[in-house]
């Protein structure tokens, strides 16, 4: 009988805890949602690349598109110049949904070198990645003069995360 009463106390304590204030919101938004995700994910046929695409979202997909293009074009040493995120935020107003990855993360995703407009290696950039609401564009930078013009255009937008 006492064991039964203590069992009731256990259930009551758990019920109260799971429904107390913010715990209720958190529990349904996180662990319960994660459980639903599990039920879907356990039957998923996604491969590793698919899981990465799903998890990292649009920016990862864009990065991998860049990699595919570089492979198709057989570019030996591609160096991708990213537009500053402050440009996306202040001018195009698409940040943070669309944003340029930092070079370290871009390298992790693709194995390709990326640079900011203020990077020490910016002089090596041979492609410019441009993103907008309309889509993405990879523009080849053919000579230092063109690169200089590109950098001058983005001068008032400092690189940021």
């Amino acid at each position, binding site marked *: 009988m006492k064991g039964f009463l203590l069992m009731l*106390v256990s259930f009551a304590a*758990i019920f109260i805890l799971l429904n107390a204030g*913010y715990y209720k919101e958190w*529990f349904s938004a996180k662990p319960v949602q*994660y*459980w639903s995700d599990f039920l879907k994910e356990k039957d998923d046929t996604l491969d590793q690349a698919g899981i990465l695409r799903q998890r990292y979202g649009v920016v990862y997909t864009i990065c991998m598109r860049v990699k595919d293009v570089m492979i198709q074009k057989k570019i030996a040493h591609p160096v991708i110049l990213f537009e500053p995120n402050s440009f996306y935020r202040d001018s195009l107003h698409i940040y943070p949904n669309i944003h340029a990855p*930092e*070079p370290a993360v871009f390298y*992790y995703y693709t194995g390709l070198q990326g640079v900011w407009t203020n990077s020490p290696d910016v002089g090596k950039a041979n492609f410019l990645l441009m993103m907008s609401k309309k889509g993405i564009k990879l523009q080849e930078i053919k000579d230092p003069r063109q690169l200089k013009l590109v950098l001058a255009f983005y001068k008032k937008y400092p*690189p940021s995360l």
Partner: protein
Amino acid sequence: MPFLVYLLLLIVYLVSGLGILQLFGLRLKPAYTITLSLLLGIALASFLPFLLQLFYIPLTAFSVFGVLVLGAIMLSIPTVMHIRREGFGGLRASLVPGRVQVQPYEVPFWVIIGFLIFVSVWRCYYLPPTSRDALSGPEAIAEYAFREHTLINSFFKVDLWSTNNQFKSPFLICLQLVYKLAGFPFGQVWLSPIFICIIVFLYNALREKVHPIIVGILLLLFIMTPETYAYTFMILYDYSNMVYMFLGLYFLFAYFSGGDKKNFYFSSLIIGIATYIRSETLALALLFLPPMILAQRRAKLPWKEMAIPDVLFFLPALIGYFLPNGVYIGHYLPVHYDVGALVNANLGDVSPLFKRYGDIVNRLLVSDFAVKLWGYIFFVTAALFVAEAVFVRRFTREALNWLYAIAILYLGLGFLGWLLPMVDLNDTTKRGMFKMLPLCLLYLANNTLLVRLSQNISRWELAPSSPKAAGKPAAAATRTVLTRSGKTVAASGPSGKTAPAGGKPSPAAPGSRRKRKK
């Protein structure tokens, strides 16, 4: 195949960790022995590949798994000697629990805790690492170490202007590498054993102090801290650092209580591991020197006998600090990190220090934001602290130890934020606060009011249902006595039964296994 390697790795950890426990001569309950062995083995697995790198040995599957197995074999020597001395029975007693006494009312707690653990383990396994701090540093280094067989790899040729995560401890990098080599492309699955081990350890540690129902509630409060829970499946340093720092303090306080040097030196090793994971732990560890000296003076140790052990105590932490920071970052990496340049240039102005202390309280402890980070665990702790201060007006020595640790952490984190402005409030300090959670839990387990409540529940539970049947009134079965040290202890227990929790003075070595009669 990866799962087979995963299981084999767990066995390697268990063997290595068990060997380390034997080296320290620690005899603990099976639950403690197994969890600590695994945690020590994981720490070792994060350190040995790093050592290989320091000797420029290529990090291939052969070398990495080879060194782990070799380490396990070498560390199993003390275990083998133990077996030769005491036979397999001694080892079995260390690893196999005797009669497990699980009360039915504990099961609902384990079901919900099991659910939370399962969900976390699945996310660890299925999803890739996502935090920016991991992707722009340790995870990327581990990925290229996997491909290029060295931690000093092509990642360092990338523009790293926007990040300093390449300078983080090799702890995470090496564990990621081990599991990528084992066939888990996202790594991460090493975090789940750490999570499960600390939960099991905490459950047993709390169970020694309070009633299982209170243990269940406290443990749920701990697991359900939203921010910390997220870090059980999101690899970074802070959750692991919390685990090892807590264990270090647990054994340090065990030394304070019982004076057993084994606990002292074991604590030193664990705090060394915590420092290897996060270097600022060294500063926090140094702040435990005063209570250490106080405990030793209380035990009437002469100064000479105190000085050398106290210096030795910090040796593992110093190694854990200088090997990754001084040696590896300073002399191996192609890019360098000038920590001196990060120090606050205006140390004469202490107003930011007090502002930081205020911000920690206002933003990280009592705000709406704080509730979203930690749930209500700090509020519960504060309420019971005030209640104990008002109604009991004294704290047990164990409770004071944990309260001191909480205060030191608060003061230390604030000080670090002032000394190094890059230690920002919303990220670094916030994650540093993880360490406060198990401290709160252990304080609560030593809170006199909760201990008394536990005793009352246990007494009621164990008393015969019918007073007549027992031959005496149920209420007279036990009597609670407040000792001079502020402990509440049961003066006498119901005959033939052991109270599930509370009611007995803390053992000198927590969880220490009593010798069984043959």
